[in-house]
């Protein structure tokens, strides 16, 4: 009889991929709930369609590749990808946006690289970037928060805008994103960038009618929602703290450097942390076990690197939000980071 002689921990909990994915999806709920509360039911329509398309294209390509279809569908990874895409696109964008994005993510970014665990890039973020550079108008038409809305949008209005691009009264989504005062209601990061480009300072921007009409508060709340879900993930040990902590710390310190250098031309660290996709990125996207760095030191580098790129793109780049681009650039560096951060084997030479 052989005596198994392994080191601690002796008591562990094994989790299957599908259990992890389900936990991640459940932890998205607070953020998604707040998003739907502020931006309307269109958000849920996007999520439904994205899930259907994600599962459908996964099944299709698995069949083409002659792999077991049901087993891979059950692990929930395609569902999660679809969900992340649906959350990151504007709630009232037309249905084909989410269809193209999700199909691209699952077929090209995930399955053509070899399926779950083989992809170099985060599928949801790659799809987001594809959509953003292909359809910039639709991808930046965030409608204003419901309570600030000049028109009241019923469920049927949103459904109709989602399917045809027009509400029942015949308004386009572009018209909807203009308030009573005729001000375009962009996301706060958008507003900040436009203000800086047209020569205003940050202080002026913060006091402007445009900024007050933007969805700043709502997006802050959505970020809080994702932060809450992320903390549950941490508590449940689905993700480890290295990447989110390094990312958020990096974001604060890098943006603080810029802010301290010139507070009138750079947005503050607090603004950085609670706008755009910061919290969603920190806890749900950067921590993707497939595309993130795997060593402890590597994870910290990875988080810091992505934070640096986010700050650079947000502060001086041309695109409103930077998390997707930064994540893809970070993904590219992962093999290099992993190579140089291999931990020393106990007893081995340094």
């Amino acid at each position, binding site marked *: 009889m052989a005596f198994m002689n392994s080191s601690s921990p002796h008591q562990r909990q094994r989790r299957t991929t599908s259990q992890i994915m389900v936990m991640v999806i459940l932890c998205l709920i607070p953020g998604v709930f707040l998003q739907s509360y502020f931006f309307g039911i269109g958000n849920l329509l996007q999520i439904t369609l994205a899930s259907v398309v994600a599962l459908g294209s996964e099944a299709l390509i698995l069949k083409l590749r002659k792999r077991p279809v049901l087993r891979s569908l059950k692990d929930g990874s395609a569902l999660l990808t679809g969900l992340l895409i649906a959350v990151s696109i504007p709630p009232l964008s037309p249905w084909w946006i989410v269809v*193209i994005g999700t199909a691209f993510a699952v077929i*090209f970014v995930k399955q053509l690289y070899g399926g779950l665990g083989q992809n170099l890039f985060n599928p949801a973020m790659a799809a987001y970037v*594809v959509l953003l*550079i*292909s*359809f*910039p*108008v*639709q991808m930046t038409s965030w409608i204003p928060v419901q309570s600030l809305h000049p028109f009241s949008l019923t469920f049927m209005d949103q459904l109709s805008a989602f399917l045809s691009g027009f509400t029942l009264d015949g308004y386009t989504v572009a018209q909807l994103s203009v308030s009573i005062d005729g001000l375009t209601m962009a996301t706060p990061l958008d507003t900040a960038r436009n203000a800086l480009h047209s020569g205003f300072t940050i202080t002026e921007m913060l006091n402007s009618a445009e900024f007050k009409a933007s969805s700043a508060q709502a997006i802050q709340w959505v970020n809080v929602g994702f932060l809450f879900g992320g903390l549950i993930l941490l508590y449940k040990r689905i993700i480890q703290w290295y990447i989110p902590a390094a990312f958020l710390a990096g974001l604060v310190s890098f943006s603080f450097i810029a802010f301290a250098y010139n507070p009138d031309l750079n947005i503050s660290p607090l603004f950085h942390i609670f706008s755009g996709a910061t919290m969603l990125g920190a806890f749900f996207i950067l921590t993707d076990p497939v595309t993130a760095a795997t060593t402890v030191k590597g994870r910290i580098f990875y988080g810091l690197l992505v934070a640096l790129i986010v700050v650079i793109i947000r502060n001086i780049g041309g695109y409103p939000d930077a998390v997707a681009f930064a994540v893809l650039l970070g993904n590219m560096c992962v093999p290099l980071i992993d190579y140089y951060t291999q931990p020393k084997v106990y007893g081995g030479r340094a």
Partner: protein
Amino acid sequence: MNQQVEEIESQQTAEAEQGIYKELMYQGLWKNNPGIVQLLGLCPLLAVSNTLTNALGLGLATLFVLTASNSLISLIRNHVPKTIRIPVFVMIIASLVSCIQLLMNAFIYELYLSLGIFIPLIVTNCIIIGRAEAFASKNTVKHAAFDGLMMGLGFSAVLVLLGASREILAQGTLFDGIETLLGDWAQFLTVTLYHTDTSFLLAALPPGAFIIMGLIIALKNSIDQKAEK
């Protein structure tokens, strides 16, 4: 007796000749296609294939340069010392490309403008120097010219396929702007497949070129695999 032997020999060589041409054609168009098998000249291939007209223009220019350079290099192959052959080849290719560039500048000015830097860049296209070095410098003029023609056709075919699929995806048209290449009579060739306010910009941008190129290569490989079975 002697005459008979000669006749048989000439028959055999005629058959062998045909076999060589067939082989060259197969190599250039399919098995050793410069675009999708050797993956040479990717820079112009991906950069100017955003519309079918651009792709066709560059394909024809490359085809011409490749055939002419192969024949010229094959003509002088016995007179060039081995040590300086590469500079000589490059000089010949460069003068041919200058001819093409001046001709395009004179006769199809708009296409010349839209292809831009990629016309002079034909000089650096690896297919041309590659065929010169690997084939033309070792074979007779006839074979070298035919090889150049076939390799050029293979490259143009890939360019045209890529250009057509990108143009359809991005603009929903085919042969848009063909009159800049063929003259005003050709305008009827422009086909509009569908109208859209929101074009799929990705297909017109470089990443789209890479993705579609990958799909074309995959298609070719899967056809080969099916044929093997």
